[in-house]
């Protein structure tokens, strides 16, 4: 593939702002990243618990559908009829015994097999029904999170998750979850601005932490060779919850020490637990400057009614697009997008020292994992750096 004509600085801690605005990069990201050999979460099992349940989503810009088959297996397909490409399901979630395309009424079962095609007696002799089953994507699940890849070249999922594997149990427990619901929002930003968040900003941007005199406790942040970043940190209990008339918003009631565990996967998804909020964030990169984020929240199947209520109340108000400690993130994504329509490079500073290579541990309140993620991005995209 020919090199893109973008000047990528020689210094690893620098990034060209044009990376957030170039249409040609976006096209290549769809090919190389979203339809390339990366794994992308599309759902948690708890979102489609019964045979016949389905959920639609996007892999990059391509519509996909996860279907819980009558045989108990969850498969992911392109949400596109194998005849002429009509989108098969239009709802975000639903339940159906079969999948019927409305255009010429081709009928598929929940395992993706083509059952019937009206008028097939006058199809060419070469037509074989089994060649027109729904186009299935390679999928694999980990702690109930269903991942897909459009590429046979992706490594085994567990190798891909690497050093972050132990964090899944810390977020999802035994993975027996129930769905509480969604918050969905559009950011006027590039998907790479959305995923370029770090630990440096948290106590500074989010005034809630200062007003509560609330600091993160001990923790570890790791960067992996596939561009993922994982944080596992204790949270001090809140000293000044007087600021809130309802301090239950920041109280931990699940019997464990309050923690923040964040699995920030390349390219875009986040699986996290913060106090008692269990949250999976999935992202659709619509265009170079439109990014849609779905926040799915979960409870545990063993929660009693008081715990369920607590999780619901905390999940609704704490960490989403309008959350007490998170609303400002969205503002920054959008503001970086505007501010990046200026020439030149940005340079990461906090925690940046001699060049390091993943897998490695980085400072919890640093931005030193960001250049490592960008370095992985640059390699996947086959963009060369300028020479020193």
């Amino acid at each position, binding site marked *: 593939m020919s090199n893109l004509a973008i000047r990528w600085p020689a210094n690893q801690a620098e990034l060209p702002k044009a990376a957030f605005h170039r249409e040609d990069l976006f096209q290549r990201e769809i090919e190389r990243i979203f339809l390339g050999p990366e794994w992308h979460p599309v759902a948690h099992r708890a979102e489609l618990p019964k045979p016949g349940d389905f959920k639609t989503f996007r892999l990059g810009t391509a519509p996909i559908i996860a279907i819980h088959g009558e045989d108990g297996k969850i498969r992911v397909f392109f949400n596109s009829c194998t005849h002429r490409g009509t989108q098969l399901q239009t709802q975000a979630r639903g339940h159906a015994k079969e999948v019927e395309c409305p255009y010429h009424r081709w009928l598929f079962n929940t395992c993706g097999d083509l059952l019937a095609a009206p008028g097939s007696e006058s199809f060419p002799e070469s037509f074989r029904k089994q060649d027109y089953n729904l186009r299935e994507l390679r999928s694999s699940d980990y702690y109930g999170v269903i991942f897909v890849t459009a590429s046979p070249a992706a490594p085994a999922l567990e190798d891909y998750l690497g050093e972050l594997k132990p964090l899944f149990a810390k977020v999802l427990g035994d993975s027996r979850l129930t769905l509480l*619901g969604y*918050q*969905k929002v559009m950011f006027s930003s590039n998907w790479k601005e959305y995923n370029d968040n770090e630990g440096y900003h948290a106590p500074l941007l989010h*005034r809630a932490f200062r007003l509560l005199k609330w600091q993160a406790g001990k923790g570890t942040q790791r960067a992996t060779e596939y561009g993922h970043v994982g944080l596992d940190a204790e949270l001090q209990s809140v000293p000044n919850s007087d600021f809130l008339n309802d301090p239950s*918003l920041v109280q931990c009631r699940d019997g464990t020490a309050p923690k923040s565990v964040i699995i920030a996967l390349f390219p875009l998804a986040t699986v996290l637990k913060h106090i008692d909020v269990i949250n999976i964030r999935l992202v659709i990169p619509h265009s170079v400057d439109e990014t849609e984020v779905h926040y799915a929240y979960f409870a545990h199947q063993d929660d009693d009614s008081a715990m369920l209520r607590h999780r619901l109340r905390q999940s609704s*108000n704490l960490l989403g*697009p*309008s959350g007490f400690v998170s609303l400002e993130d969205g503002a920054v994504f959008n503001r970086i997008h505007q501010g990046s329509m200026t020439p030149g490079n940005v340079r990461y500073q906090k925690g940046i020292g001699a060049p390091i290579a993943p897998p490695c541990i980085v400072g919890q309140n640093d931005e030193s994992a960001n250049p490592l993620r960008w370095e992985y991005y640059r390699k996947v995209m086959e963009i060369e750096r300028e020479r020193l």
Partner: protein
Amino acid sequence: MNGSNVPAAVDALQSRYISSLDRRDFDAWLGCFDEQGSYICISRENEEQSLPLAIMMDDSRERLKDRVSYITQVWAGTFEDYWTRHFVQRLECTPNGADSYLVVSNFTVFYTSARGGSEILVAGCYADQVIVGADGTAKFRAKKAVLDTTTTPRYLVYPV
């Protein structure tokens, strides 16, 4: 109060409510709820699938007051501001026990960003419980904004 005056009292409350939001007078917004009042803003997608998660869940006086401090103290100065215009149309007003009425209304909220353009922020319907006192003033006991707009075009700072 005389039942024939109830719709007028309810409409006066709705007008106070939307004008307090559009003027960003959050004390006046708080004053639209009675002491047991609650405010929920939820997507229709969740509501229809019996998924209880909300976008804002202020189910007590304490949380309503906290909502005001989120806006005025916590987030102030960080977010991209926008100006709203709420339009409300009452569809139903049904008695529901002593002094209590179930009120259903459609709404549309326009927003204008600092860049100057105006667009629709959300559309949806309110399902409210309103208490009309003997003196003829109405307050919300429970206000639920159900957003048809499942994916909002920007993050919501202010209640709807």
